[in-house]
């Protein structure tokens, strides 16, 4: 039975609470086969909690997850999903090769051990004890373990934490090479650059919710939008309805503030069609904007009204 067209991941309305902490609050995520998706958000945004629920390592309080149309456990039993976790998950007293052999042995069908070691770039240290491996080498070992079962979906939780710049670049090159063969990849990260450089699609999470979802360019525009300020006579206020590509419009006592991803269109409209004057275009810092979008102090405009009712 083929599974063409079934989403690799389909998660609906995920909720998870730990005591007082609402780690995930109604998160929806659908990932189509072949996509490379970055799960981007600051520490504590609920990325790991969500990944645990997708993998069936924890059970959502509410909501459902399916992987290739199966339950997480069903997908794992079929060898359709593998994960590279942040820490742990390795036996210190065996060698790199033995670790991959052992992992391969758990599955009905697997790729050759040497192939997984080669793709992960650790064939040269195959006989090294795990406890003698550096953090980066252990991370590559986790990657080799994930590759050996040849899963349709690969999930990586902050995979480059603790790696140096060169190690990071090599690691991503290996992931990219693997994704180009058609594997679906989801990786969690809190680095904007990493998501930008390696993902086709970025899902931005903040406080357990998806706050933005789109291509890297779209997200960057969203995060790096500009602010157009102008003086506008009150008589022209009705013309603001015709403003193109405005994310938000604020008018107060003759002062207009427009937040937009396309400041050129806004300026052109204001100058051509209204009596606006004293125009000023301010570029938001990319990094600052990202922090603003995902940080705790982010504006409530990105929060769904449903959540507010839910909280009350």
């Amino acid at each position, binding site marked *: *039975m*083929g*599974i*063409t067209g079934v989403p690799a991941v389909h998660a609906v309305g995920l909720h998870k609470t730990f005591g007082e902490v609402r780690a995930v609050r109604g998160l929806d995520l659908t990932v189509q*086969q072949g996509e490379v998706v970055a799960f981007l958000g600051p520490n504590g945004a609920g990325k790991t909690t969500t990944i645990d629920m997708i*993998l*069936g*390592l*924890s059970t959502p309080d509410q909501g459902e997850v399916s992987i*290739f*149309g199966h339950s997480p456990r*069903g997908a*794992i*039993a*079929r*060898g*359709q*999903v*593998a*994960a590279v*976790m942040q*820490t*742990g*998950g*390795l*036996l*210190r*007293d*065996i060698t790199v090769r*033995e670790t991959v*052999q*052992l*992992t*391969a*042995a*758990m*599955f*009905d*069908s697997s790729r050759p051990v040497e*192939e997984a070691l080669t793709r992960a770039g650790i064939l040269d240290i195959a006989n090294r004890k795990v406890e003698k491996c550096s953090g980066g080498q252990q991370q590559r070992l986790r990657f080799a*373990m994930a590759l050996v*079962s*040849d*899963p*349709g979906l690969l999930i990586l939780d902050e995979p480059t934490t603790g790696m140096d710049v060169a190690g990071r670049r090599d690691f991503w090159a290996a992931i990219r090479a693997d994704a180009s*063969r*058609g*594997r679906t990849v989801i990786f969690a990260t809190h680095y904007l650059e990493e998501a930008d450089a390696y993902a086709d699609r970025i899902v931005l999470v903040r406080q357990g919710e998806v706050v933005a979802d789109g291509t890297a360019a779209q997200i960057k525009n969203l995060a790096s939008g500009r602010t157009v300020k102008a003086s506008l006579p009150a008589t022209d206020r009705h013309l603001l309805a015709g403003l193109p590509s405005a994310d938000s419009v604020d008018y107060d006592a003759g002062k207009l503030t427009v937040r937009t991803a396309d400041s050129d269109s806004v300026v052109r409209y204001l100058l051509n069609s209204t009596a606006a004057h004293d125009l000023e275009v301010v570029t938001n810092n990319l990094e600052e904007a990202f922090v603003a979008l995902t940080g705790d102090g982010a504006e409530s405009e990105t929060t769904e009204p449903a959540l507010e009712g839910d909280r009350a």
Partner: protein
Amino acid sequence: MSTATAMQDRKPSAGGINRTFLWIEIKRMLRNRRTVIFTVVMPAIFFFIFGLSNKNQQLPNGHSYGQYILISLTVYAAMTAATGAGSQVAVERAQGWSRQLRLTPLLPGAYIAVKAAAALTLSLVAVIAQFVIGALAGVTMDVQTWVTAGLVAWLGSLVFAALGLFVGYLMPSQNVMQILGPALAILAMLGGLFMPIEIMGETFGAIAKFTPAYGIGQLARSPITGQFDAMWIVNVVIWLAIFVGGAALAFRRDTKRV
């Protein structure tokens, strides 16, 4: 080098026991120096200290002390080996390996079965090592006694494999054997493995009958004592049930929390 298989739906794996897993588990145990010291070297030293000097003495019941102490220390060696092997789950939990295994088709039951099989392998090594040392030191017994005592010590160690799993799932410690080692020595003493129960005095002698090493020790020595009591089997079965039940409960609690 294709990932074509990833694009087709697959059948769920049975998630059962496999040879590679068992083989790597056994290799891991035999490579562990501390395990070998606990299971082979220490019981051998005990034998040389307590057994060798008076191996030709007669017990009050007329049996050779050498035979008595060799069989008793073999039971001790086997139980230490099995407990140590079982308790390794504590180390694997601490290293996140148990969690990693939950990302594979392996079923929890198969994991436990492999752990039990590995524990039995190690306790078999302990039994054989102890018997070889005893034979080299000049202890003689008829074939039937060697075989019966050896089998009882070996299979009886399953009780302690379960104890090891129980404690391994209960405690997060990396050094679970540092607690279990002295505990096992106390259980061995109370079970009459270090000295005959007859010379323990009335109170301790009465307590001894309810401890987990007692039944196995008595059964293992029955070829030389010529005695048999069904209560010894009851002792073994009850302790096995307690430790397996405890291990199952602790395991369930553990997988829920992770």
